[in-house]
């Protein structure tokens, strides 16, 4: 377990995060730490106490809280005075070297990115929400829910990949939410306890099964002599796997007659391909917990690209748990008139021959 002692401090004093030097500003404004309470709440609700050996970061990054409970624990790493994201990364690396099976972190999106930088999706994590910016779906809905996720992990669950989002803090401070996918972390698949995550309908399928079904259906219905632009995301990657091509997880890749013809494309690259191949379709998935199909994490799909492809050639895919967490879909292309064209209904492919008609809200 690693606790970010400064995450969340900006919230109470009206700052929208504690990245960089904003932490000092938060202190100056009288902010108090938030993560201690969240950490203790998390630890107090874990029921399988005797079955866990905790490796904790020292002092206020973990040890200070765990010693109040009856868990077995070992302290890993050292800290000196004020801590930073470098301490989070360094200690996380040391913990991984000790062959831990799961990493619990307490913090916000920034902490999630630090953890991702070290472990990628090499082992599962549990995110205890304790920051100001908690938009990433990797987080549990609450500290108490995170405890339930840990219990479920002990009892045995499958895993799935969830997005780690990078929120532009300057934009956030000026009231805009500008997010991109930073990466994916592996989380226990206890869907109702994860932020923006839901379980499937009557048939309990894992996320991976659902993605495979979607991929099967998409590939089965792919047209010949049509350029397919695949957006970022793990479901899109599954589609690429099914076709038999390698795909960038965070970029836009292009496929024509089941062959990769473009990788990690920018606007200019996409436009060149559109000119070359003519008829085209875009396949995207809603980003994170906020339902954006354009404008978040796939800005390479510029208004120029979208107008050339046309709304009728946009295919939206998404697992049921992702769709169930959304009231509506959204677009923010940067072109208001284009956004209005997208508003209305769209079919989202959620399984093999299964679609949900959702509203795109402007």
């Amino acid at each position, binding site marked *: 377990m690693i606790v970010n002692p400064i995450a969340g401090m900006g919230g109470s004093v009206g700052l929208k995060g504690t990245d960089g030097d904003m932490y000092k500003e938060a202190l100056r404004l009288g902010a108090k730490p938030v993560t201690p309470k969240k950490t203790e709440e998390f630890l107090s609700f874990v029921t399988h106490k005797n079955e866990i050996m905790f490796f904790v970061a020292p002092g206020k990054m973990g040890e200070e809280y765990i010693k109040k409970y009856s868990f077995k624990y070992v302290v890993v790493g050292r800290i000196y005075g004020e801590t930073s994201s470098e301490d989070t990364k360094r200690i996380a690396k040391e913990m991984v070297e000790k062959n831990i099976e799961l990493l619990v972190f307490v913090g916000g999106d920034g902490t999630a990115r630090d953890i991702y930088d070290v472990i990628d999706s090499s082992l599962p994590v549990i995110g205890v929400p304790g920051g100001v910016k908690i938009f990433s779906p990797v987080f549990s*809905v*609450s500290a*108490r*829910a995170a405890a*339930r996720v840990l219990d479920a992990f002990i009892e045995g669950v499958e895993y799935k990949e969830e997005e780690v989002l990078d929120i532009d803090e300057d934009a956030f401070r000026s009231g805009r939410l500008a997010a991109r996918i930073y990466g994916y972390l592996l989380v226990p698949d206890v*869907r*109702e*306890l994860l932020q923006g995550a*839901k*379980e*499937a*309908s*009557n*048939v309990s399928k894992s996320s991976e099964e659902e993605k495979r079904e979607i991929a099967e259906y998409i590939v089965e219905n792919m047209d010949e002599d049509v350029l397919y632009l695949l957006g970022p995301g793990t479901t899109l990657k599954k589609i690429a796997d099914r076709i038999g091509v390698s795909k960038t997880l965070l970029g836009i890749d292009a496929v024509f007659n089941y062959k990769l013809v473009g990788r990690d494309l920018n606007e200019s690259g996409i436009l060149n391909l559109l000119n070359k191949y003519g008829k085209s379709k875009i396949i995207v998935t809603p980003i994170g917990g906020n339902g954006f199909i354009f404008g978040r994490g796939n800005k390479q799909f510029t208004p120029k690209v979208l107008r050339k492809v046309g709304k009728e050639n946009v295919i939206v895919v998404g697992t049921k748990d992702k769709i*169930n*967490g959304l*009231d*509506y879909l959204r677009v923010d292309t940067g072109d208001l008139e284009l956004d209005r064209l997208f508003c209305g*209904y769209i*079919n989202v492919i959620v399984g093999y*021959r*299964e*679609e*949900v*008609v*959702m*509203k795109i809200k402007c």
Partner: protein
Amino acid sequence: MPYPPPRKIVKAAERGLGNINKYITSEECEPLFELLSKYSKVDRDHLFLGPGSDIIIREVINAFSRGRNLITEYPSIPPRSRYMHGYRVKLIKIRLNPPDFNLDPELLVDIADKSLVVIGNPNNPTGKDIISRRALKLILENTDALVIIDEAYYEFSGVTYADLVEKYPNLIIVRTLDKAFGLAGLRIGYAIGGETFRHALQSLHFTLSRPSIYAAIEAIENLNYMKKNVGIILKERERMRKALEELGIKTYLSKTNFFLIKTEIYDLVDRLRKRGVIVLDLSSIWIRGFIRISVGTPEENNFFLAAIKNVLEEHD
């Protein structure tokens, strides 16, 4: 239905066990057809019987799914996806959203052509009428869709489109004696539809058991018990809603024997379960925070209200 049927209906079912070594005959079913015709105010020829409304729906899908998509609302309980297993149909689910949970008739007209449309009206789990008479006629008149309206909760809502069957051959209404009549264990459903559906459903009544038919005849001949129970349920429903609103919990209007609440307490369902109360958590299939509450007996409802009050006090 929390109340069992009267003794005379149970006795009628027992009489049906008399000659269970013999198949049911059309003559034995005919009194039930006549009674349902009178009850539903439709021609006897428009009636079909089956072992539960979901089996009737499945038979219609089986007969008419070739070359058609299946369109339905979402969420729906039971999930319509179960009807499509084994059939090569595409399932298109139209998401219901708060606060109205209505189906957009223009959207349906746009997408419903040459489809099988199955709509629960009222819808389970929202408890709302989600398609108006006007919207239904729009679809029936402007598309080549076959429309199945599931009126399982007709006795609670009082809303029916059965009279439209005479005019619209592409419409079928499906009902059940499971809910308001309290005969869920006997599995008796019936449908009101035109010639279009005759071939698919005309022999389905032979799948009913004799005890079920005898009990159903007795139930339709003695409607007072059903009306009394429905009256109690509707009154209790509103009492519960009012009590929950006074506790600060958002509830939604309903036309059935259940209703929706919305809560920010993410583990309310768990905490109620620990107090001996089972409710349906829709967070796992629809939108987080929505829970369906079924109306029980007054004693059960008081137990539930005390439990939820206890949870709220603990939460504070």
